[in-house]
């Protein structure tokens, strides 16, 4: 007698397309997914527990590791919270430096995503193309900070040293639009790509909000929510948030391409400001006896993978009493429970890829 049985499949933690060590417990009927249970924690480094035993300046270099593709954002969060707590306003030039570097970092992160996503879909070349462009940005960061990924460049009250090699940035933002056109030629209107992404992984805005999805994924579902609009750091910078109505994987891809273009605009403005205002001064916060006044501090930022926020509770000691990170990817992983059900396995890979999940951010 033939009985219908389902197949339990462990997708990950070691799997080429889970982008790290995500484990998805799938129940399959043939190739159709009946249920999905994400399991995380293979990369847990205890960032929150660690903070409780470290002074702020000791903790600062480690926060880049929360998201190794966009480390700047987490340094900025910690710096900004400490500056806010100490009542320090950073000077104009520092602000321009930070915006420029954050946006460069965002582009690098999105570029890697484009490559990895297309790799998930089985296309080979876009990965190398994206890596080539990302390499320009990483080279620049290496030149400036001595590091390719964990920059540790932002410090409390400023940056480690004045920005240099502005002509390199100008070169990058001059080349990138042409390269993006190349991507669009090879990817965007590709028939197979459209078939794999159009109408796949539809994320309704209400669902997205209910699952606390933020960032590009939310904006690709048609909700205009970009923290940079209200961010004090971005004051005086002009840009339009990318909002698309597609709701599907293709919209999420397109939104990232458009967001790179917006970032290029922001970097242009940042570079112009840096050229006008060459007066480099830092606000000095002595990190060695830095004690945050008693109280609770919260700040958030628009990271490439959605809203990132930090919560610090201080009791007036030199170490935080409690420090909590909120990262975008963690909620995207939670969304997989809903989004993957009813999809076929190879669509599921594409959908999970389109959400831009990165595991160090999930596990913290």
């Amino acid at each position, binding site marked *: 007698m033939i009985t219908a049985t389902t197949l339990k499949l462990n997708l990950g933690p070691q799997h080429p397309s889970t982008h790290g060590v995500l484990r998805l417990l799938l129940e399959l009927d043939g190739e159709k997914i009946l249920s999905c249970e994400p399991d995380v924690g293979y990369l847990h480094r205890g960032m929150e527990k660690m903070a409780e035993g470290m002074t702020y300046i000791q903790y600062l270099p480690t926060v880049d590791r929360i998201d190794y593709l966009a480390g700047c954002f987490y340094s900025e969060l910690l710096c900004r919270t400490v500056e806010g707590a100490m009542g320090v306003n950073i000077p104009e030039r520092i602000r321009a430096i930070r915006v420029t570097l954050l946006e460069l970092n965002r582009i690098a992160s999105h570029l890697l995503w484009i490559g990895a996503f297309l790799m998930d879909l089985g296309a080979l070349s876009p990965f190398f193309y994206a890596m080539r462009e990302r390499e320009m940005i990483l080279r620049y960061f290496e030149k400036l900070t001595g590091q390719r990924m964990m920059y540790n460049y932002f410090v409390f009250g400023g940056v480690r040293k004045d920005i240099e090699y502005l002509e390199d940035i100008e070169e990058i933002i001059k080349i990138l639009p042409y390269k993006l056109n190349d991507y669009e030629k090879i990817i965007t209107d590709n028939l197979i790509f459209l078939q794999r992404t159009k109408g796949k992984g539809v994320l309704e805005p209400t669902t997205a909000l209910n699952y*606390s999805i*933020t960032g590009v994924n939310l904006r690709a579902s048609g909700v205009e929510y970009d923290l940079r609009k209200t961010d004090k750091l971005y004051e005086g910078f002009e840009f339009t948030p990318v909002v698309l109505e597609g709701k599907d994987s293709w919209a999420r891809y397109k939104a990232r391409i458009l967001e790179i273009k917006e970032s290029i605009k922001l970097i242009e403005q940042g570079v112009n400001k840096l050229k006008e205002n060459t007066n480099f001064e830092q606000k000095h916060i002595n990190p060695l006896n830095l004690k945050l006044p008693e109280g609770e501090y*919260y700040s*958030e930022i628009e990271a490439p993978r959605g809203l990132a*926020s930090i*919560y610090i509770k201080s009791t007036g000691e030199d170490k935080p009493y409690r420090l909590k990170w909120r990262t975008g990817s963690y909620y995207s992983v939670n969304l997989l429970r809903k989004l993957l059900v009813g999809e076929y396995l190879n669509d599921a890979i594409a959908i999970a890829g389109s959400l831009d999940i990165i595991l160090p951010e999930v596990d913290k």
Partner: protein
Amino acid sequence: MDINELKDIFGECELCQDKVCVKSKLYEVLEYIKNNYSFNVLKSITAVDLGSDVELLYRLFSTEDEENAVISIKVQNEADSVIDLFESARADENEIYDMFGIKFIGNEDLKRLYMPENWEGFPLRKDYVQDDTRLAWNDNSDNA
């Protein structure tokens, strides 16, 4: 959001600093806020161990009004689950269970998330002592 209105309905609500502190009936408060003030996003749940009890901070956000709100509740070892209202709470509650050992009533999926399944103790509790014998640096370690 009107704090007085909340006070009238639920009592026991007060505004401490910039957050709304409730004593109990967390689920009802959140449900009311969600339905009447269009707070449709639960950005995160933060747990803070205060020693005697654990404070839970619910960070709400409304996309219509672009408004933030923080609801705070102090709990011992159990709290109401809000996954019926906000699906994203499933992730937060699981993390808090893993790190603080707070059981969320109504959430069936609670399991050890970051820590190994048979781990004892909850690391972010202030009374947590790292003396697990499986850690190589502990003196009483078996595999030292």
